[in-house]
């Protein structure tokens, strides 16, 4: 288990490789919690906001001389703070995620946490608010929130296959669900339907280990889930492969179809491929998606 700090550090490195992400401000009014529609305050932005008189602590170099020369006082030029959006995240913390087929590969949980946090950092950098679904960690902005998110992502859940948390969805926010989606699909379906009802759109990222995709087993085998709650014995694992792969494909198709219906975007990521490509996909999906 990585510590929260180490996780954040790797995630920062991951995030540093992409330009800051500005999620599309789609439903502007609905997402602003405090009613600050318009963001009429000074901040990080390109557009001119206002001149204000020089105050103690301001550097002399920040004085706008052109404006100050027109009057007796000294003035400082300020820019408008641009609008931010809320993004809510659900990360699967179930035991099934804590699996890696080989020593050289990260566990699915590791990879999912890294991707989620990297995406969160990008979003926070772009001025967005990021939080968790449910009531534990509402969307906020700032570096402090990233640390809180990192902490939240490093708690392990004991159940074998976790169900998505669909409560506390802000209307018209963006959402990000990251899991292996091996559990029962009914709760996922319910969560997505609920989200669609509230105008929440987002991305569904399925993280799978390469062995789950290939099923490279032979001979007499007893398969056990990571939490040991489930076991299955077979005498000829090779014979199972076809049927297993068919079921997996069916599950993927079902997820994809669900996304299509609710206006979400679906992608499947394997832990033996680069995290960067997955992050790029999330970035594209959050920034330039249809939602």
């Amino acid at each position, binding site marked *: 288990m990585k510590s929260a700090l180490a996780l954040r550090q790797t995630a920062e490195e991951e995030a540093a490789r992409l330009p800051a992400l500005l999620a599309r401000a789609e439903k502007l009014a609905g997402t602003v919690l405090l009613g600050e529609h318009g963001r009429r305050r000074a901040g990080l932005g390109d557009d001119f906001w206002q001149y204000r008189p020089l105050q103690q602590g301001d550097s002399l170099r920040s004085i706008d001389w052109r404006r100050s020369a027109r009057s007796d006082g000294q003035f400082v030029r300020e820019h408008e703070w641009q609008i931010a959006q809320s993004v809510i995240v659900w990360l699967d913390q179930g035991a099934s995620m804590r699996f890696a087929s080989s020593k050289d590969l990260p566990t699915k949980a590791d990879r999912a946490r890294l991707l989620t946090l990297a995406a969160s950092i990008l979003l926070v950098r772009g001025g967005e608010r990021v939080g968790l679904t449910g009531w534990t960690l509402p969307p906020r902005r700032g570096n402090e929130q990233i640390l809180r998110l990192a902490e939240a992502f490093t708690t392990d859940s004991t159940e074998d296959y976790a169900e998505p948390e669909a409560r506390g969805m802000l209307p018209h926010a963006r959402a990000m669900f990251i899991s292996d989606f091996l559990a029962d699909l009914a709760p996922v379906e319910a969560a997505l339907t609920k989200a669609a009802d509230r105008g929440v759109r987002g991305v569904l990222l399925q993280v799978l280990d390469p062995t789950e995709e290939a099923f490279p087993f032979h001979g007499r085998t007893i*398969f056990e889930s990571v939490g040991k709650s489930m076991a299955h014995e077979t005498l*000829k694992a090779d014979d199972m492969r076809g049927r297993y792969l068919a079921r997996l494909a069916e599950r993927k198709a079902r997820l994809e179809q669900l996304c299509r219906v609710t206006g979400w975007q679906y992608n499947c990521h394997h832990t033996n491929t680069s995290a960067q490509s997955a992050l790029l996909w999330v970035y594209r999906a959050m920034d330039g998606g249809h939602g």
Partner: protein
Amino acid sequence: MTLFGALGFSAPWLLLGLFALPILWLILRAVPPAPIRRLFPGVILLRGLKDDEQVSDRTPWWLLLLRMLAVAAVIVALAGPVLNPRNESEAAGTAPLMVLMDASWASAADWRARQEAIEALLTRAGRDNRPVAMVRLTDPEEPRFQAADVWRSRLPGILPEPWEPQAAQTARLMSVLPDSAFDTYWLSDGLARDTRAGLLEALENRGRVTVFESPRSLYAIEPARFSDGNVALSLRRLRPGPETEVSVVAQGLDPAGNPATLARVPVTFAADAVTGETELSLPAELRARVTRFEVEGQRSAGAVTLPDDSLRRREVALIAGNENREGLELLSPLYYLTRALEPNADLLDGVLLDILPANPDVIILADVATLGPAEEQATMEWVEKGGMLLRFAGPRLAASDVSRDSEDPLMPVRLRAGGRTVGGAMSWGEPKSLAAFSPESPFFGLDIPPDVTVTAQVMAQPDPNLADRVVAQLDDGTPLVTRKRIGQGQVVLFHVTANAEWSALPLSGLFVQMLERLAVSSTPTQPEAADLEGTVWQPEVVLDAFGSPRDAGNLPGVDGALLAGDPLGPDLRPGLYQGEDRSLARNVVTSETELTAVNWPDRIVVEGLSRPQETPLAGWLLALAIAMLLADVIASLALSGRLRGARPATALIAALMFASLYPHTLQAQGSASSDAFAIAATAEVTLAHVITGDAQLDDLAHAGLVGLSETLFFRTSVEPSDPMGVNLETDELAFFPLLYWPVTPSQPTPSDAAYAKLNTYLRSGGMILFDTRDADVASFGTSSVNGRKLQQLAAPLDIPPLEPIPADHVLTRTFYLLQDFPGRYDARDVWVEAAPPDAELIDGMPFRNLNDNVTPVVIGGNDWAAAWAMDERGNPLAPVGRGFSGERQREIAYRFGVNLVMHVLTGNYKSDQVHVPALLDRLGQ
């Protein structure tokens, strides 16, 4: 013992156990492997699936095969297999046995092995009560059949001879062979000879013939030749084989007179070649000391060659009375001498007194009449020590009074005034020709061409001792060549000129032969029998068959004609023969010697000297079985997926095996830490700070550089790796673009070697940022503790003149546009290399044209590292200023760091005037 080819079994019935293997195969196939437990989250998708058939996977066929082979190996091993078991029945018989040895030089190389073979044979013959006779073909005697034990006691005394059996010897043996039946055991030396076939037939008429031959390759060396200033050596071998390299050693005497190895040269036989050649370049002095060349590791006379005078090029000094440079070349007194001597002597040219210390073998004075007293005395001493003075007459000598009244010490005879001329336009008589050489003359035996005539000569006074001194005369009895011995040396006078003016002698081949006989020059080739007619040569050193030199003792002298032409034998042993003035070598192998392997008829049994060893195989087979069972264990584990836990153990075992096989590789890696340092420092751009010894300060400097590296990483295309601390005494500096050197009063002053390294670093484009960290209390001009320490530290450094950083310095615009350079403190005193005094400010330009180098030092006291320092989370470590303006100052400090690194890495790129318009635009002017 049951035999299958070369394989025998002590318990062959056990092999029937092999028939049980197919049954075992069926049994093993039926047993299924144990189930494997695997973690697999996808198990949820498997729920409810049923196996199609209730038969488990069988063990894979290759694993079964492995087990079968292991069991088969055990069964075969228990049956007691033996490779090459001794067959007692061979070479048996009851007839008398004759052991016939070629006993030539070619069998000397492995004589000991032959002796052992004979000994074994004698033992067996003794057991069978067979009478044995032993005959050497090189020295045949009548075969006497005696008890084997008698011969065994005499065996050590039977040795090979250094020559090859000749037709006469073979014929003699055939004449003394008894008529009764006997078997023959022929130890052949492997060389083909014409006489073999007849002898073989004669022997086969009397009984069975078995031939023993050594499979070893036989090496022989031809006499060393002199070619193009080098010694050419050519080697041969009997049988073509793979590429082989042998060494040839030149043995001789060292300057102290002790035997020593003077040179060693490898000779490579190309694959399938039977000859190998090389050239050995030796200085003349060393070459003259070589007494023998031998093939290293070959104890045979054929692998030794003795060089005679042919390698010893004599040093001959040529001095003429009148060096008429403008005359015709053919009239030069030295022309014919030079042409005659050049091919096989080293010629010296110069003044007599300069030449004498070089101690030449021969000095030739062509028509030199008088010598100065000093010259005469030195020459006399030289002649007495063995030098040879060869004088030629000429007009000057004839006109001078030298040796007129009394005999000159350096002349063999007294001369009459004027000399004589015969056969010319103003004289009577015919030109004179040469008389035949007398037997006492060194020229005895040389043919005199009829066209050699003499038209003029100097005349010897008829003194009582004249007759002894004449070595050649004309047909009217007047002396032509006279000789006198002085001490160990001699003086020889040719009564004619050295050119064709007085006689036709220098034009003839006789002239060259006479010079050779006088040992003025050495013969380049082996002499013909005719050349040596009438000479007697005394053996000095002779070789035995093993190639060892033996003192010739009282061996009789050999006639020259025999020496040149006869094959080697008991009367003409290989060795070095001394003639009157030179030595001649007879070597076993010459360039005409043919080395060809014998082609025995098919009916003859040919055996090698070494027979294959009897090898029991049971142990090897059992080891193989165990190895296969081990492999089975690993393979079974791998199949059932249980190898994962065992992997570290297998890796450890493999590593141990590897380590035991290659112990040196592990040792070699011990001294690689400096390489690791270099690789770490150069893999990426790396900032470095000087280790001051103050742990707190060093940590802060490191954290500062970490902060600067992070800043660079996020803001620029410079992506430094982790900064490093540098020990000035031990670490290489050249890897680092920038050294941050915080100054503290307690740090030690670097050593001279470290300063040398620092100066090299500064001259080759490195930059040191000195930080006195006291800008809060000291500004430039006021002396502080750190400032004084800085002066002390920097005094031995090669630092150019400095100036406070000017407003148009390139540091102000390498990345960010900066006007001041704060760290934790914000003092303006930052010093850089002074701009050249001729730097001009061009009208309309914001800065001067300063295309100079990167400044080698930046000196300031703003404690930059403290401002840059950040921990792993990016939090600043040291406070800077107060509130927002403090953060602003820290930001500017970072920008200064970025500018500094950019300046080091890009030099004066931004000072280039090309960028002026863009910079003007950004400056808003």
